[in-house]
């Protein structure tokens, strides 16, 4: 994203993309993250996306909206997004703010997120 240490890392694990946000992102960085991720969905034909936001100490209206729109775009491209690692204080503030993740599934951590996607796949296969 820029010359400094990576703000976000996106790793591929089978047909799943795991995106970890490492630090607070400003609005433009958030949009760049959205674009990078959406591009990679197509490149690797991902079916599942996990966004790990455990490192974020604030998810404000713009942050929530961007995460939701990533999930919406991914869904239109055939991938399911799970948001994992929302900190308890952050969750509390989001509720007070009036934001939530809408229809986007959330899970406690990366492991739970992967389990969620595995269950979906199992249901789809049967």
């Amino acid at each position, binding site marked *: 994203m820029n010359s400094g240490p990576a703000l976000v890392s996106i790793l591929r694990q089978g047909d799943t993309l795991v995106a970890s946000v490492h630090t*607070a*992102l*400003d*609005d*433009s*960085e958030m949009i760049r993250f959205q674009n990078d991720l959406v591009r990679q969905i197509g490149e690797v034909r991902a079916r599942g996306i996990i966004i790990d936001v455990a490192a974020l*100490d*604030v*998810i*404000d*209206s*713009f942050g929530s*909206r961007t995460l939701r729109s990533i999930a919406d775009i991914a869904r239109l491209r055939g991938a399911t997004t799970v948001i994992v690692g929302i*900190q*308890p*204080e*952050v969750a*509390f*503030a*989001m509720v*007070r*703010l*009036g*934001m939530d993740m809408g229809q986007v599934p959330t899970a406690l951590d990366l492991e739970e997120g992967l389990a969620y996607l595995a269950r979906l796949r199992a249901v789809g296969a049967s």
Partner: protein
Amino acid sequence: MRVLAAEDRIEPGMIEPYAIATVRNVMATMWRRDDREVRNRHRVFDPTQPDDVENVLVASEEQLAINEALRRLTDRERQVLLAHEVSGAATQMLADEAGSTAGAVAAQLKRTRARLRVEYLLALDHIEPPTDRCRPVLLALSSADRRRQREVDAARHLLECDVCARLSEPLLDRGPVRDDVLHVTIGADPDIVSARRAARDLAAQAGFTGTDLTMLATAVSEVARNIVRFADNGDVTIELLERPRRGIRVVARDMGPGIADVEAALQDGYSTYSGLGLGLPGARRLMDEFNLVSEAGHGTTVSMTKWFDPKGSA
């Protein structure tokens, strides 16, 4: 507002002793790094207390210097400083009275304190600066304004001018002017993150924890974004309050186009445009107090407060 009222009637040379004593405490704390001292600055110097007796002689010298320094301020500067430091008037209240904004008053107070320190040091040593360049240099040092220091070429002047070189020591050898007020200039996306970090840091120092910190930081994020989106630039001032109890006040100020219908802007779903949709009503829900003043063509000022809850919250 007793001091502000009284100040109109008295000669500048006859400022009431208790006002001088309080300002002396403000001055005394300027050279201390212990921030607890800064927060206790309203403790009034009392020469009848045994601990203070041996300080009386020094104090009278200092009082004369403070008196003289106060006299050299403009009437307006002196009024606002005394109202704030002695009577404890909040910047917002002073702003309302002057038809200004809290951010502007806070900036003015900062300049005034910087001037007061310079004039105090000059008065204490009974000297007039030898050149025209001295005061601007000393002021730039006193306000810790690095940009201004470069503009007036302070470093070079200190090499050439013995008086300023000597006075620069007490001016530089101190912590920030006040470590309980932070200003963040808002002009672009990264400033939103800087503003909420600053708020979080100051609040954490003041004892805020957990959810309260996150709610404060989130609210600051929303009002700062509002400035970037709708006004291009402005500033956010974050201030630690001690009265009526401990809290953090955030004042977000811009000179943008203003909000035509404030009531509507505070309703959820007012605009589909990112920012106003949830930003302001959301920020209001995250804080304990929220006040928005906007005038078409003259900008918007949001001031909001979160009170410290020693129990912490969820």
